[in-house]
């Protein structure tokens, strides 16, 4: 049984700026098996982040019969015991130390102090930032800050990690290095990762499966297994072959997205009204 099962999910919202109803997702169905490393790839504005947010329980999908099951249960809201979520930005609280930032997710779950600390340190060690435990976020580089954010997600020790373009704001070297770390951690701890990106190279470099989205309204156009052996190397013949194969599908959609005129808005998510 797949651990994540999305069936016929749509999302429309009212765009206040243009006063129009925008449909970002159109009856999307996709599933992830346990230990999957699933990439959601698509042109900007195609709704891939929206889909991730729906799976995470951060935004509701349209109430039109679509269904999201995670570990067999419908998603009704954030479930940090089951799913960790990682943003494009590190989102570290500047008034907390690195260690306290990593512990922040565990605090919500009433994990006791000693255990919190021990778990946070374990993952900081895993990404080589143990000695920065008592530093403040402003003392970190962009790549280090994103590593800390990764630790915060890992420390929850959830079955599933959802990542929304987590390395998009980094320079290319940090991106590749962090990608390597993520893959090695994934192979060690065996979690299910769903990873949103608009980078073709990143998708092929990291993913075990790649789902290509159409331009808005987003649908899944292609869902392929990427069984290139690891460790992978960018630029080898087989790597390029895979990139080509995905690009053939992605190209038309990127052109469509570019041609649709308006610069596709980033799929912002909103907090539910309180």
């Amino acid at each position, binding site marked *: 049984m797949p651990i994540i099962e999305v069936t016929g999910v749509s999302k429309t919202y009212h765009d206040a700026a243009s006063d129009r109803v925008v449909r970002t997702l159109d009856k999307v169905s996709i599933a992830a098996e346990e230990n999957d490393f699933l990439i959601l790839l698509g042109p900007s504005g195609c709704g891939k982040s929206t889909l991730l947010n729906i799976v*995470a329980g*951060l935004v509701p999908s349209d109430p039109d019969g679509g269904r999201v099951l995670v570990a067999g249960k419908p998603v009704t809201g*954030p*479930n*940090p*015991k089951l799913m960790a*979520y990682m*943003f494009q*930005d590190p*989102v570290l*609280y500047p*008034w907390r130390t690195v260690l306290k930032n990593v512990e*922040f*997710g565990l*605090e*919500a*779950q009433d994990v006791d102090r000693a255990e919190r600390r021990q778990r946070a340190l374990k993952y900081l060690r895993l990404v080589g930032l143990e000695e920065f435990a008592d530093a403040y976020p402003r003392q970190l580089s962009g790549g280090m800050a994103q590593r800390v954010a990764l630790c915060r997600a890992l420390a*929850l020790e959830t079955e599933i990690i959802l990542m929304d373009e987590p390395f998009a704001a980094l320079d290319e070297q940090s991106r590749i290095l962090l990608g390597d770390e993520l893959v090695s951690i994934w192979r060690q701890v065996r979690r299910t990762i769903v990873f949103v990106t608009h980078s073709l190279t990143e998708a092929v470099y990291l993913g075990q499966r790649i789902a290509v989205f159409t331009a808005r309204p987003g649908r899944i156009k292609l869902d392929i297994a990427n069984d290139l052996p690891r460790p992978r190397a960018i630029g080898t013949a087989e790597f390029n072959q895979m990139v080509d194969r995905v690009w053939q599908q992605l190209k038309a959609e990127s052109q469509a997205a570019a041609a649709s005129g308006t610069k596709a808005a980033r799929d912002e*998510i909103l*907090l539910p009204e*309180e």
Partner: protein
Amino acid sequence: MGKLSPTLARTLLVVALLALWEVFTRLSSVSAILIAPPSAIIMQMVQILVRTSNVPDFYANARLTIAEILVAYGLAAVAGVLTGIAVASSKVIGDAFEPILLVLYAVPKIILYPVIVLMIGTGPATKILFGIFVGIFVIIFNTAAGLRQVEPNYLRLAHSLGYGSAKIFFKVELPAAAQTILAGLRLGFGYTIIGVLTGELLLVNAGLGYLIDWASVNYYTAQLYALIIITLAIGVVANYIVGHIERRWVRG
């Protein structure tokens, strides 16, 4: 001569000015009633503090002023922060009440002083109320602004980690807004002092403001300067304490 540090330069400037002032008042024909020499002022300060001056009931009056400031500031801080939270917490409340607050903020408060005196008389309560009135707005607006400027991602993260809105408020919104709120509290403190002292200067029945007025109308020029300096010193020390607390909080 070695390197000139900023502190040394500043000290030298102040000493030079005081010396110039002293020499000027000794040599010139300007009456001592108009300008007192620094030496006389310093003498007066000492005399006031050891109660050998002719300034009446210095300690009782100083205590009253400090008490008024503390009460006014305590109330302004609590009411200001709570009002700021209310204004920021809901769009309806914000839209409904912020225009009123902005008008009150923009009005020169002094023109409302006679109304306050008419309403509640000439006791300490009037000065306290005026102090609150002068000090509270910057606290309200800074609190509201600080809370509104919290990065949406900070809230999204906490939400995704399963925090409820009450916990998000105390664990994320308040600390994220702390710097702006504390800046408002610090400015508000200065304004509250101004409000209380203005009240005393206008009412002229008790407090340091009253003593300053007393020295002025009786041409006790040295006493006047000495009292002003003492009042300033109290303000500076209090401001330092508030600033110190602010820095500790921001870091913690």
